[in-house]
């Protein structure tokens, strides 16, 4: 019996995924453990190693299409086996795109002799083993740039001024069909955004410059959400809805860190320790001193995490990921530096493994490189606080009645008010400031 390969859960938070690229084609022989696809999850693009062996009988999921976890993406089996039989036995449609569109009939298992969706003729497909029979074609919608849609749906979308990409397709392979466009058109006409667009469109004609020439107007562009974007949106919304944030900012003088950093970088051949590395180490030490900050609020009670794993927010193409420096409190500055560099690079390459992006107990988000003085961040659900770090800049400060120039960095601790009150946070920030302004204590 052929095996239906399902979209695997490759990260703990993954709920849907995209086949970024198939590494096998129909007819290929697959060994257990062989990479068969690259799957884009909410966190990264990951290689998917097959759990099964066999001949690829069918690739169901088109590249670029969002699929729900567990959706059938391919069928493996023996040469000549009918992939449809395995799919029919499994029940459900041949494809299960993640589109939330209602598809009442789809789930109902159809007759065992279900006509293969891709067969050129509504007759049972010829046995793939027959030499003259062409190999089952890959879904024509496999091109990731191409949105599968019926010609009619394309025309209707054009006429209604709707972006195909924004319309969930309920047809085979997520194909956008007439019904989907009409539903989207109806929804759009009821939504405020559409109303605004309509007003814009209506007003556009009357908008002219001083010479009476109409301003050029350009259509709105809608971009399909990536899984990462969706995850960020969902989690940030959840955080802001659930967590009452409290934000406190403290200036920290980094002159001594700067000096120590220079000395270290001179002595450590080839390794460049960053301010952020110091910050991570200091945060980790401070978290040991204030264990409640290394925790989270749950309805059952407060959790203080035993280990200190510091997440480091890294901006990547299309969003951000948070690789984790595990056991940061026990690591040397050199180790931390090597870890962050490696994690950061692989975050940008989207080659992080899921376990490297999960389990953080506290997060540091640094926008100093963009010259941001101070900002507030949103607490990651599952954590109690996040440290938003601004740029280090030379500032004039008054010390003992004298104006002196100091390297000042502003850190904002954004935290879950259900866990802490302002004074708790202030104490954590004070410890952090103390550690960084006397950095040798970090190595005590």
């Amino acid at each position: 019996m052929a095996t239906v390969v399902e979209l695997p859960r490759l990260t703990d938070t993954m709920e849907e995924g995209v086949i970024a690229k198939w590494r096998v084609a129909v007819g290929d022989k697959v060994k257990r453990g062989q990479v068969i696809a690259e799957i884009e999850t909410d966190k990264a693009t990951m290689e998917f190693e097959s759990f099964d062996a066999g001949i690829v009988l069918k690739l169901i999921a088109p590249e670029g299409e969002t699929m729900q976890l567990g959706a059938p993406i391919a069928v493996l089996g023996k040469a000549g086996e009918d992939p449809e039989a395995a799919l029919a036995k499994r029940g459900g449609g041949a494809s299960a795109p993640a589109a939330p569109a209602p598809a009442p009939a789809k789930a109902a298992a159809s007759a065992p002799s279900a006509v293969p969706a891709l067969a050129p003729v509504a007759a049972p497909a010829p046995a793939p083993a027959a030499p003259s029979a062409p190999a089952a074609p890959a879904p024509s919608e496999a091109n990731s740039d191409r949105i599968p849609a019926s010609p009619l749906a394309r025309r209707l979308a054009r006429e209604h001024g709707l972006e195909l990409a924004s319309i969930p397709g309920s047809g085979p392979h997520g194909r956008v069909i007439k019904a989907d466009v009409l539903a989207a058109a109806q929804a759009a006409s009821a939504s405020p955004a559409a109303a605004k667009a309509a007003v814009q469109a209506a007003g556009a004609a009357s908008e002219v410059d001083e010479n009476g020439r109409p301003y050029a107007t350009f259509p709105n562009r809608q971009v399909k959400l990536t899984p990462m974007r969706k995850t960020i949106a969902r989690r940030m919304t959840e955080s802001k809805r659930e967590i009452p944030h409290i934000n406190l900012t403290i200036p920290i003088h980094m002159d001594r860190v700067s000096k120590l950093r220079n000395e270290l970088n001179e002595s450590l051949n080839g390794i460049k320790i960053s301010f952020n590395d110091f910050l991570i180490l200091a945060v980790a030490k401070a978290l040991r001193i204030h264990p409640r900050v290394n925790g989270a609020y749950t309805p059952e009670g407060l959790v203080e995490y035993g280990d200190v794993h510091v997440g480091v927010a890294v901006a990547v193409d299309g969003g951000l990921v948070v690789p984790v420096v595990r056991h940061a409190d026990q690591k040397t500055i050199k180790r931390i530096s090597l870890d962050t560099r490696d994690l950061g690079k692989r975050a940008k390459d989207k080659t992080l493994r899921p376990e490297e992006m999960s389990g953080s107990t506290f997060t540091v988000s640094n926008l100093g490189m963009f010259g941001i003085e101070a900002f507030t961040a949103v607490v990651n659900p599952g954590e109690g606080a996040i440290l938003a770090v601004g740029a280090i800049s030379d500032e004039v400060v008054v010390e003992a009645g004298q104006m002196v120039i100091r390297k000042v960095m502003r850190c904002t601790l954004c935290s879950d008010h259900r866990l802490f009150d302002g004074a708790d946070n202030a104490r954590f920030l004070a410890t952090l400031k103390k550690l960084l302004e006397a950095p040798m204590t970090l190595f005590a």
Partner: protein
Amino acid sequence: MPEIQIRHAIRDAMREEMERDDRVFLVGEEVGYYNGAYKCSEGLLDLFGERRVIDAPIAETGFAGVGIGAAMCGLRPIVEFMTFNFSAVAFDQILNNAAKIHHMTNGQFSVPIVFRGPNAAAHMLGSTHSQAFEPFYAHVPGLIVIAVATAYDAKGLLKSAIRDPNPVVFLESELMYSVKGEVPEEEYLIPIGVADTKRAGDDVTVITWGQGVPVALKAAELAAAEGIECDVIDLRTLRPLDTEAVLESVRRTNRAVVLFHGWPYGGVGGEIIARIQEMAFDHLDAPVLRVCYEDVPMPYAENLEHLVLPTPERGLEAIREVAYRR
């Protein structure tokens, strides 16, 4: 209106045209003394005699060619093939002579002839006797190709075919000769090249002809029970094709299934789909599907034959699929 069998509608058409026009004659195997292998010429020999109802030996190339030669001289031959499978041995006559002479002679000659007989699979006749010939003939410029499914259409179109100045391939069905249908007593003609809607609906267009028509109608009935209303278009003439009738329906339903007796590869079904995508592309909401023979020689065994043939159930599956009701 009286109900008569298709075979009698065909006979009546030939009888009326032979009565009307002395130039019309019938030639073929067993058409005279035997009264026709399928009794389509029953009684004609008695009425018209050996001059006009001519038994031919088994020589399809010979009597097809004689028909063509006679037609060039102004006669109006009806050439009966006992089955269209036997027309294969006369293919060169139809392809190179009947279809080309008007063109090749710059219009000096025409070939007003009808080649008629049963087409496509009957029941358990094996691969050489179960073939559908419309793709072969509809492929050829210069020929008219007609396929009928009701007594009314058979009579009206055969009379038009006999009067037509062009060579006409007129496809009947062995399985349907005894199917009865209403035929008016007064004379009527049905124009060549005009499709007929056999059942109206707005959800899915089902395009069919000949022996496919009853299958398509049954499939449409099954679909209606599921709430899918089919527009069943009987093309009746395959060349020239009533493209506008197909397009009008597809523009309304946005989806189509072509159901026919015959192989899928390079056939009339493919031609119809090509025209739909070419001329109604922006009206399509689903790929157009074919329900037809499987791409295999027809097996004799009953169970295998049944698997190869288009059935109402397979028609229904395709209808559901294009309607996204799976």
